[in-house]
């Protein structure tokens, strides 16, 4: 068992666990030691012995208060992006401020854009879609004449083996799918008749991250990466 490991010098096998515990082993030996540790209960007992012994040295790590930025970053990493939007009142509340700011920006852009372009999108409603802990930011413009929502991505990246899916929500009703969207292209989404019937100021648009092809269920299964309410322009 020891012939694949360089046991030069004294101790060899016997203190391999100590070298592993200290993190001293070169990569190849470290991996082979790890493989043996998985198989060999006696060697695991050795490793425990050493980790326990060395832990008495922990007092040598001087306590140092971390920067104040660390804790909010940890919370963001762990909780913000994976929390389902459907069960989080706090998230909805926090969205309002961000969404409002982006909506104002979007309206501003809309107003200063020259109207000479024949393809100009005559929007009557705008929604800014974003969520805490997610970098996805999308502006949605609704054109009542065509019954289409035009989505423009401000920020957001494709995720391998995932699709983004757009949803509309009326009040406390169930989300209705508006289909899979491309995050890296402009999307003109035709609203289905049943969504169109209720669509208006206050309708929430949300984007979730789903398996390829979209949610296997009639409701979102993945994290909501952006959401916002439609407002009249």
């Amino acid at each position, binding site marked *: 068992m020891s012939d694949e490991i360089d046991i*030069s*010098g*004294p*101790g*060899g096998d*016997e*203190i391999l666990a*100590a*070298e*592993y*515990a*200290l*993190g*001293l082993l*070169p*990569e190849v030996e*470290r*991996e082979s030691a*790890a493989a043996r*540790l*998985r198989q060999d209960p006696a060697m*695991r007992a050795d*490793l*425990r*012995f050493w*980790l*326990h*012994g*060395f*832990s*008495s*040295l*922990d*007092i*040598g*790590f*001087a*306590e*140092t*208060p*971390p*920067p104040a*930025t*660390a*804790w909010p*970053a*940890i919370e963001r*990493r*762990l*909780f913000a992006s994976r929390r389902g939007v459907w069960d989080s009142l706090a998230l909805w509340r926090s969205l309002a401020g961000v969404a409002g700011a982006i909506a104002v920006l979007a309206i501003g852009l809309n107003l200063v854009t020259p109207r000479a372009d024949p393809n100009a999108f005559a929007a009557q409603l705008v929604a800014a879609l974003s969520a805490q802990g997610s970098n996805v930011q999308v502006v949605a413009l609704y054109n009542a004449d065509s019954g289409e929502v035009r989505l423009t991505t401000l920020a957001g990246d494709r995720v391998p083996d995932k699709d983004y899916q757009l949803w509309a929500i009326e009040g406390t009703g169930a989300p209705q799918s508006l289909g899979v969207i491309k995050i890296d292209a402009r999307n003109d989404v035709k609203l289905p008749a049943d969504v169109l019937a209720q669509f208006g100021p206050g309708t929430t648009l949300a984007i979730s991250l789903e398996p390829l092809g979209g949610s296997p269920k009639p409701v979102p299964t993945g994290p909501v990466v952006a959401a916002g309410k439609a407002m009249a322009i």
Partner: protein
Amino acid sequence: MAGDTADIADLIARCALRDRAAFKALYGRTSAKLFGVTLRILRDRSEAEEALQEVYVKIWQRADRYVPGGFSPISWLVAVARNHALDVLRARRPQGEDIDLALEVADAGPNPEQAAANRAERGRIDDCLGQLDADKADAVRGAYLDGYSYEELADRHKVPLNTMRTWLRRSLLRLRECLSA
């Protein structure tokens, strides 16, 4: 921190139950220690902060692996932080998968009586290190506290790499005898 061992064990247990208030309290109680670990090993404040964030993400995700009566809870947390910092150091060189066996073996650790005897044992490892030549004891401390590799230890002590490895292995054998006595 020795006095609130039970509290910290309780906070870890509540983290395993997805109690976010407990997680925040655990952070408040232990982050200065763990930042001390990542800072000492990585020697760069912003890298140490990044590592600290990753450490607490791991702690939240793996809190269910902590078994009371094994490591003392703060030792377990320090081990998570130390292993992660060593992984960051190794990532500066080409390397393979992240192996975190030090966490996995905590299952059937020393019994609670042993864990409770921590202070006595601290005296013991100091005594045992004290029986080594000073530079060899320093090398062991440097490997544990600073994450030095054999190469770095050889450089610092101005001896060839093989000599350092031989030194350290002899020292570890003597430590083992002393700690087991």
